[in-house]
């Protein structure tokens, strides 16, 4: 069987998700052995354009150019897979959605006249059909390896969409919400990180975005019981997955 051809593409992002691939020190060469890394500018000058069996997309769409580019990549790819919160929900830069872009530009740039940017940062799935979404800000190495290994053998990657709480308990962490009253998004957040934050005595801040059927309202009510004010609750839901519909709606309720 021919090795699947992989292209790795970057949109608006911090580079962290594609860096995760280079951070797979133990597996990198095995990955390169199992798939043909045809296009990956962060790692290689060779730009082998053409058709890709798998396209990894990092980042969200924030400029007119990016909006065109994603259509082209989609047309040239069999399976289009998004990596991380930016590509999957818009990422941190989606905080500008709903804000006054002109004011944002003024806040940052001395000479704003050249700035060419869309008013929104949007997930890839707003533009093209996405075959699989890997969550996280950043994605976890485990998930990435699982994704590649599963794709190579043809199984569904095991990246369950249940709550981070399950991983928290599998890891044997003590719930920070119950034992410390620390606000934690674990109950509404998609698993994948291994419940890192509770393991470090802090609440989950939602890198992996909403879980399946998240009850954000019930969690927000409990956060308020623990003393969080509306502003804190709104902020908690508006970080790296601020544009994920369930989180955005909950945040709006507290603005």
């Amino acid at each position, binding site marked *: 069987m021919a090795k699947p051809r992989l292209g790795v593409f970057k949109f608006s992002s911090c580079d962290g998700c594609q860096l995760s691939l280079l951070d797979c020190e*133990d*597996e990198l*060469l*095995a*990955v390169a*052995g*199992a798939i043909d890394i045809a296009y990956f500018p962060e790692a290689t000058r060779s730009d082998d354009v053409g058709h890709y069996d798998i396209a990894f997309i990092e980042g969200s769409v924030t400029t007119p150019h990016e909006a065109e580019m994603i259509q082209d990549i989609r047309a040239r790819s069999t399976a289009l897979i998004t990596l991380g919160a930016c590509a999957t929900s818009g990422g941190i830069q989606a905080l500008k959605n709903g804000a006054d872009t002109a004011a944002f530009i003024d806040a940052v740039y001395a000479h704003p006249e050249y700035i060419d940017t869309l008013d929104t940062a949007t997930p890839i799935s707003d533009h093209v059909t996405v075959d699989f979404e890997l969550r996280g800000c950043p994605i976890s190495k485990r998930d990435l*390896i699982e994704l*590649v*290994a*599963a794709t*190579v*053998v043809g*199984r569904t990657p*095991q990246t*369950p*969409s*249940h*709550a981070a*709480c*399950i991983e928290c*308990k*599998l890891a*044997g*962490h*003590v*719930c920070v*919400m*119950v*034992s*410390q009253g620390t606000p*934690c998004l*674990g*109950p*509404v957040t998609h698993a994948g990180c291994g419940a890192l934050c509770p393991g470090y*005595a802090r609440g989950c801040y939602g890198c992996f975005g909403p879980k*399946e*059927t*998240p*009850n954000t*309202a*019930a*969690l927000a*009510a*409990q956060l308020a019981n623990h003393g969080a004010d509306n502003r804190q609750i709104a902020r908690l839901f508006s970080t790296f997955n601020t544009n994920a519909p369930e989180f955005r709606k909950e945040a709006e309720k507290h603005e």
Partner: protein
Amino acid sequence: MTLPVVIDIKALDQLVQTLAKDRQVMGPVRRDGAVVYEEIQGVDDLPRGWIDEQEGGHYRLKREGDKLFGYTVGPSSWKRFLHPPKQTLWRAGGGGITPEPIAEDRFAFLGVRGCELAAIQVQDKVFMDGPYRDPHYAARRENLFIVAVNCTRAGATCFCASMDTGPKVNPGYDIALTEIDGGLLAEVGSDAGGAALAALTSRPATEADLAAAAQGIKDAEGQMGRKLNTDGLADILKDNPDHPRWSVVADACLNCANCTMVCPTCFCTTVDEVSALDSDEVSRENRWASCFTTEFSYVHGGAVRPGAKARYRQWMTHKLGTWWDQFDSSGCTGCGRCITWCPVGIDITEEAAAIRGEGG
């Protein structure tokens, strides 16, 4: 059987050391603001002088007194060791299948409470009494030595008295301890327990010792923070799948699965396929699963229980109702963990009462 004796803390330490010679002794330790079960080296590791304050969705440790076992049950349960969160089943590579060697763990548990021993016995039925058994569980169970502890203090979310599982432990232990002034009353529950106890420095228990222990247990019974009326409950639950209360609880429930993870009897697992990129070996692994997730009931095309209401109903009806049909026992032993460790404090006793038409 041997008469009860009284041992002191030094003797208890000696017991731990003796058991540790050919076992991993697991016991209570204080970690990250809670009492959890981990490997212990001696009595010094125990959370002496710490008690817990529990309520729905609330747990805090505080200093009070100097009892070794003043705390009640915490977030971890013994199932973590007997039925671990992940268990490899077999590995395959190079054309053949190698079953995972049957677990050789030899555990001794120190501080098993009444509700907890009952929970172990519930899982025994699940994993060992059916037409098929889980050989890893069975092996760990056979090698297990249990030092139980009768509760002399109960928490606000405890209701073992309603479930007939405590505060005094039912048989099934090797040794049972009751903390009294000036020592620990020790009772023997098995030959192995008798032998282990005989090797320790002890004195025969006096009437006063026995009375003090009984009083401690009675005190705990009086402090029981929750009650569950089990009368006809199984049928009430099964007969009320459309009770409006299920929708009420579904609105509050996060379906985060914490209750099932902390519950000492919840046994469900999902099988994961594990393959690596750099080897041909693949393996299959069991992982704790929960009926609160949609993937749990997934059949091609969608979940059988997509709604939160159906998932909560499944869990509670199973625990308190259909468990009886399946295993001829309750699936709940009244430990209260699911109440305390639910991030929003949903209370199984309150929900059951509400379906029954009381309170709520």
